[in-house]
């Protein structure tokens, strides 16, 4: 086991412990909020905010790696840019799954075209567009550059999400932001552990897992090219070629 593996498993164990503790205190030790905040449904808040902030972490990773790829293309930068957009799409989807269910109880509707919700939806659509581009348009240099440019542009929208609620108002709660009344002290531990698990621990774990896939795919392509160069014909019949590369049977 390498040092990187040890760090990964330590992070995974820390995440499992943190999320278990968070769930326990959310349901056993945290009081229910007022009905206008959704009552029992307000308990969605403790993970909803954590995953919402997770978009900033994963989107930030996507931005940095994408910008780096545009300046100096490398397999590592491409892998992290891809991992960042994949994870940002996941975190965005989690926010869009949990938010409307809470909103239904707190506001009476699943969705309103509130500035923060609308800008968030726009960002999530951009990250999904990057995922679809990478999945269906191939993995050539032009596609990678286009995905990286989208990754940079998509992340530029993230600060707009944050400030939209201050600038343009809307329905979205401002409890833990400037102008908000804050959380009751009895609710703070649940919020803290929700953020630790979903914003601090989960994003690096998922980014690591996802970037490893991209790096392994690059490794597979290199190995395949090496095998083709060495005339892998007879023994390659049962092996499928990586996407975009000729199959071994085709060389016979």
């Amino acid at each position: 086991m390498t040092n990187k593996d040890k760090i990964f498993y330590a992070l995974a164990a820390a995440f499992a412990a943190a999320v278990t503790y968070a769930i326990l205190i959310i349901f056993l030790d945290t009081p229910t909020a007022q009905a206008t905040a959704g009552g029992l449904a307000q308990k969605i808040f403790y993970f909803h905010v954590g995953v919402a902030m997770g978009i900033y972490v994963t989107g930030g990773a996507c931005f940095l790696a994408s910008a780096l790829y545009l300046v100096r293309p490398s397999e590592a930068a491409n892998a992290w840019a891809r991992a960042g957009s994949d994870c940002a799409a996941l975190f965005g989807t989690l926010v869009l799954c949990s938010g409307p269910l809470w909103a239904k109880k707190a506001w009476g509707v699943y969705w309103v075209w509130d500035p923060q919700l609308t800008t968030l939806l726009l960002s999530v659509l951009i990250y999904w567009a990057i995922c679809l581009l990478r999945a269906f348009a191939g993995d050539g240099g032009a596609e990678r550059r286009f995905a990286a440019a989208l990754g940079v542009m998509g992340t530029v929208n993230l600060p707009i999400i944050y400030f939209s609620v201050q600038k343009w108002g809307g329905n979205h709660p401002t409890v833990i932001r400037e102008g908000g009344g804050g959380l009751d002290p009895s609710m703070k531990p649940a919020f803290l552990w929700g953020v630790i698990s979903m914003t601090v621990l989960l994003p690096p774990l998922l980014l690591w897992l996802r970037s490893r896939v991209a790096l392994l795919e690059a490794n597979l392509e290199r190995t395949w090219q090496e095998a083709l160069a060495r005339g892998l014909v007879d023994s390659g019949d049962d092996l499928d070629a990586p996407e975009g590369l000729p199959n071994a049977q085709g060389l016979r």
Partner: protein
Amino acid sequence: MNSSQSPTTVGTPSDRSTQFVPVEGGNQTASNAGTFMAVAYVLMWLCTVLFVLHTWRKTRGIQRRIDELHQAVSKLPQDGG
């Protein structure tokens, strides 16, 4: 319909939720709020677990193919090709 009639049309920052406070007996008076909460939690964790499983399976699949290729290459004579 104006802002005083429906919370769905609230438009000014001052009308928004700005703090969360606990209430007595909230669990009993929450009607179907528990269902919404349960669905939200199930959806969030289901998406996360599916994402991790998909990533894990993909990683194992690619790793297996790399190992197969290395094995196939190692069987070739050194001057093959």
